[in-house]
């Protein structure tokens, strides 16, 4: 029982500290689960973060689940996942409840417009970062532009656009893979 309580406390703490996403969260995990608790090694954490980013879903949940699972199987994964999300769950409901009445105030309203444009800048920044890992070939540029055009300028459901683009990207990668194999065979 002791280990689960320890996991509960550690992941709750991580959930409370996980501001800013991405790199900030990696630093917190490094300190809490690698250095302090030694539940995973630094190499394992690097692997975990890399896989978390490729899987669908919430990156933070992916990494908490994987760490919990390595340490204590399915139950460990469940404890890690639920407790790491608990602070966010409680705080957003509480804060929304407290702040909501003020959001119609003109000054608060203007501050919110400013914050949302700040978030827009943060999103543009992650466009730049994603571009670096997503675009390896001119065909990727075409897929990215097609995706943007369909999502911004048409009313096609976003799920359908994503599935279509995923299928195109998959087919394209398989095509290049086969082509490469063929060249490899011819070279011999």
């Amino acid at each position: 029982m002791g280990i689960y309580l320890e996991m509960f406390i550690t992941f709750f703490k991580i959930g409370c500290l996980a501001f800013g996403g991405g790199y900030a969260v990696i630093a917190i995990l490094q300190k809490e689960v690698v250095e302090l608790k030694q539940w995973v090694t630094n190499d394992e954490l690097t692997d975990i973060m890399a896989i978390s980013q490729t899987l669908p879903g919430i990156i933070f949940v992916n990494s908490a689940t994987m760490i919990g699972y390595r340490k204590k199987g399915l139950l460990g994964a469940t404890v890690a996942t639920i407790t790491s999300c608990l602070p966010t769950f409680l705080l957003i409901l509480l804060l929304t409840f407290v702040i909501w009445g003020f959001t119609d105030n003109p000054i608060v309203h203007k501050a919110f417009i400013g914050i949302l444009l700040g978030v827009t800048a943060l999103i543009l920044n992650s466009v730049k970062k994603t571009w670096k890992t997503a675009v390896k070939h001119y065909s990727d540029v075409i897929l990215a532009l097609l995706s943007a055009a369909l999502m911004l300028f048409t009313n096609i459901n976003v799920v359908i656009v994503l599935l279509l683009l995923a299928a195109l990207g998959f087919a394209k990668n398989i095509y290049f893979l086969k082509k490469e194999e063929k060249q490899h065979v011819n070279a011999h």
Partner: protein
Amino acid sequence: MSTLIDLFLVFLKIGAISFGGGYAMIPFFETEMVSHNWVSLADYVKVIAIAQVVPGPFAVDSSSYIGFKVAGIVGAIVATIALCIPSFVASVIITKFYTQFKANRYVNALLMGVRPAVLGLLLSAAYIIGLKPLYQTTHTFMSLTMLKAFIMAVAGYFVLNQKKVKIGTFTFIAATAVVGILLF
């Protein structure tokens, strides 16, 4: 009961298809809550603004709030758990079969193949958060407000990318609130 099942299925779906995580999930949330008439975009963006001072993944902020609006505290719990289930299942399976998975070319072709599409999701998210709420109140793109909003978002991007002064996310968000009050 049927509302809870609806919530569960919708958030399960979002959790399963949201490649790229983070901001790339915004278009999915927006599409579903508008089509189900659960929450207005004007209210949702307020929650995104508040979420900037809340730790943890903002997808959980979104599911908690939308779930709560639709079916109270039970709705919040159902939506959040449903959203996390696909990530949870995928992560457990991956941990078990990581070596086979890493070597599989088809899996890699899919995971790499979907990445360019994430760029479209992100640009769409930037529009939904930055310009669409303003468009819904002014009904035009040709206004001073829109121009100011556009300039502020682009200027913010350059501030984030300059190398001279290191700015934390908190400081940045606080500064944008002040600029917002002065500018709009």
